[in-house]
């Protein structure tokens, strides 16, 4: 049993940490306040190969793995969750389905630009009427003259409306199957929809509580026609495919949430040593130091949980439950630590430009996105036979 990182993982983590501190952190508050997408940072992350971390070199990737991506996400999320989710969604939701389920031709066509961070892809699963219950998908794709005609609407789609967004992987109902018991099941498939296709529209960006510098839009799809070969993976297998994408994605989100939780610890330790009250640093009060000690314990636990899920995944062992546990624990750790960190900061914790205030606004979605806390609990309970 060994929880030490291999040297190349450690070096990657340290490098991304430096990049986050030196390049991202100084501009985070500005992008957050302006609700602006940080194109220049994304470009630099592309040059560093972060968008290509888990992909082989033949597709323009770095020849690393999913765990390498997780380490990068953790380091970035310490200082900026918006930038981290842009990377997470770009790689694990946008590019990964093409790598996992795409034909050789689809991979050759889309992956090199995505892996270089020069283009972004979104993953359009959630709909106005279908969130946790993705089986409720209403968007349809019908075959017509060698094309798919896609109609419907999507909700909350990350990276779907930037200037460099090239495509969205859209889940849609492509037929129905009658089950032995007579019930009708929707066949869901995934279709690659290039964003310049007529009828595809990223609607006005949401006014979100947090993740302000990340790009999130509702999508409308009206008679969107794409070539038949834009089917991603097998027809009717879309549901199973995105479930496996989401299982992996949960590990990445857990890593991101771990970073957020750790960022809250780092800020709190620094501030507790600096800030004086009653003639001594506030950290000299056990009420403050114990709070921060508990925060550290949460971040550490979250990290172990995602390391475990990732190592199982890389070893080719089942990891669904461990990914759900990691997502659950890390999401809650981020939220709890953000609440405690803002308390340590007193009034300054309520001022938007402070990093802990940003974490406080940003962390909430970590209990919801890529499977709510309740969905994770459902998965864990199911594994227990409940």
């Amino acid at each position: 049993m060994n929880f030490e990182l291999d040297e190349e993982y450690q070096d990657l983590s340290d490098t991304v940490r430096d990049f986050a501190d030196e390049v991202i952190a100084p501009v985070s508050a500005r992008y957050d306040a302006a609700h602006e997408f940080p194109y220049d940072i994304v470009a630099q992350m592309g040059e560093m190969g972060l968008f290509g971390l888990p992909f082989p070199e033949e597709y323009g990737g770095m020849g690393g793995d999913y765990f390498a991506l997780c380490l990068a996400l953790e380091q970035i999320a310490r200082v900026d969750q918006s930038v981290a989710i842009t990377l997470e969604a770009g790689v694990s939701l946008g590019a990964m389905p093409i790598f996992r389920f795409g034909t050789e031709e689809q991979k050759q066509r889309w992956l090199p630009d995505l892996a270089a961070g020069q283009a972004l892809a979104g993953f359009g699963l959630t709909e106005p009427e279908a969130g946790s219950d993705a089986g409720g998908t209403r968007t349809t794709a019908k075959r017509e003259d060698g094309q798919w005609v896609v109609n419907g609407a999507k909700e909350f789609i990350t990276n779907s409306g930037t200037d460099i967004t090239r495509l969205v992987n859209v889940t849609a109902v492509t037929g129905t199957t009658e089950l032995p018991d007579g019930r009708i099941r929707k066949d869901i498939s995934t279709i690659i929809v290039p964003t310049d296709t007529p009828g595809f529209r990223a609607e006005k960006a949401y006014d979100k509580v947090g993740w302000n510098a990340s790009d999130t839009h509702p999508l409308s799809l009206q008679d969107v026609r794409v070539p038949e070969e834009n089917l991603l993976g097998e027809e009717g297998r879309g549901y199973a495919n995105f479930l496996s994408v989401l299982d992996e994605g949960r590990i990445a989100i857990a890593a991101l949430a771990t970073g957020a939780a750790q960022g809250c610890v780092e800020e709190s330790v620094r501030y507790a040593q600096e800030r004086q009250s009653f003639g001594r640093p506030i950290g000299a009060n056990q009420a403050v130091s114990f709070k921060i000690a508990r925060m550290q314990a949460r971040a550490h636990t979250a990290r172990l949980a995602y390391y475990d899920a990732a190592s199982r995944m890389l070893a080719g062992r089942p990891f669904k439950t461990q990914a759900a546990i990691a997502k659950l624990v890390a999401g809650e750790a981020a939220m709890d630590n953000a609440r405690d960190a803002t308390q340590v900061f007193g009034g300054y914790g309520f001022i938007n430009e402070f990093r802990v205030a940003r974490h406080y606004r940003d962390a909430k979605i970590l209990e919801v996105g890529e499977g709510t806390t309740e969905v994770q609990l459902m998965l864990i309970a199911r594994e227990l036979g409940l």
Partner: protein
Amino acid sequence: MSQPLTIVVPVKHVPDAAGERVLAGSPPLLERTSGILSELDEYALEAAAQIVEAHGGAGAGHRVLALTMGPAGATDALKRALQLGADAGFHVLDDALAGSDAWVTARVLAAALERIARTEDRAVDLVLTGMAATDGETSLVPGQLAERLGLAHVGFASSLALAEDGASLTATRHTETEALQVVADLPALVAVTDQANTPRYPTFKAIMAAKKKPVQTWSVTDLGLDTDAVGLAGSLTEVLDAVPRPPRAAGEVVVDEGEGGIRLAEFLVARKLV
């Protein structure tokens, strides 16, 4: 370009300037058990990488070689150099080197450069250094090294470009009053400043590749030097004492109650600053 280039970048392992630096021993010296590649050397490595990219890239047969003289931990500096694009590393490692000053360092590096040329069986065209090491900050080594090797020396270059044929270079040097454009024939030694470029962050691919790159270790005698010509014994200067800088005193706050400007002026006059 007629011939592929051979570029050597001497790099130094230093205590992290961003962290707490500790003085230990007698005479007190900076603790060097843990450290990093001197940040200013990253500009030299980046300059080397950019020259390679501008002259045919990785396939063109150029060699960028990182050289360090330092304790065992200095392999970390070499590793970083290999991640930032150097093709191979050379480490001069010897207990006899303890206490070496700039004079000795230049002597050892010069011998190592000659050894590298023999080992690689190619002449060194360009030596690129940082403008100073972030620990000693003497900036003496580059000039002394160029002198010993008989290379043209361009110090404090804030820009650097190689001619198309690789036979000469153009650099910019900034003095307090002017910017000089200088041209030098190769072989040459250029010390680049932190204005010369923006060092890259290594990619994961580069981190993985660095693990497979060779590092050779040489002792002082391997370089054909006498052990008493190096270290404290061979040095012209010796550190007698070192004390931590006293903590910065609290500043004086001037609250502007209508006469803030006057108070500021008085403050400056009192210190003979205006």
